[in-house]
């Protein structure tokens, strides 16, 4: 399973755009890139998932370069409620590796007023 590397922590201010980059140099052909958000005392919550290029939903955008060895989660205009831990995961969408996701250390984002 591909290992991921992300910054341990990031600070931002309300209204700013936040970009969190994740490295996954050993990503396999069948692997998708998925980002989760976790608030204290809650289970992780799915944010966005992609395979290549750019994916956008109502919460975030995910940018994946052509070599897929990294990805960037972009959170537009963050608010205090976006303070959480963000996990980048790489896994096989098609169950070839049992479908399990392996969590890295995550990035603790702190949004200040």
């Amino acid at each position: 399973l591909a290992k991921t590397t992300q910054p341990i922590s990031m600070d931002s201010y309300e209204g700013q755009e936040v970009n969190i980059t994740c490295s996954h140099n050993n990503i396999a052909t069948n692997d998708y890139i998925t980002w989760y958000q976790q608030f204290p005392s809650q289970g992780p919550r799915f944010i966005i998932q992609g395979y290549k290029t750019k994916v956008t939903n109502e919460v975030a955008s995910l940018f994946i370069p052509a070599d897929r060895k990294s990805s960037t989660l972009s959170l537009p205009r963050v608010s205090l409620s976006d303070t959480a831990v963000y996990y980048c995961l790489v896994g096989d969408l098609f169950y070839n590796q049992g479908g399990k996701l392996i969590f890295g250390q995550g990035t603790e984002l702190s949004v200040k007023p």
Partner: protein
Amino acid sequence: SAVISQKPSRDICQRGTSLTIQCQVDSQVTMMFWYRQQPGQSLTLIATANQGSEATYESGFVIDKFPISRPNLTFSTLTVSNLSPEDSSIYLCSVKQETQYFGPGTRLLVL
């Protein structure tokens, strides 16, 4: 999306006892997973529990310590046996559909 509930939400247990955690899903799912999250740490996969087969444990986790049941496609239990303070963690149930969903977790404190 799947809605997952866990019982209990939290518990305090004495060392040497056991705690069984229940995970209920609002739809039928083949693949279920149990994770552990120690204080201030990331999630660690304990085992994969597919209905109709024995659970598959990750390195460092054994069936005697973490027995799992998966009687049907909407329910699973994880038992943490012979508790010690090192077992104090959050235990999370997860299921896979179009993506992977997580339950709210069970916070365990062992005294």
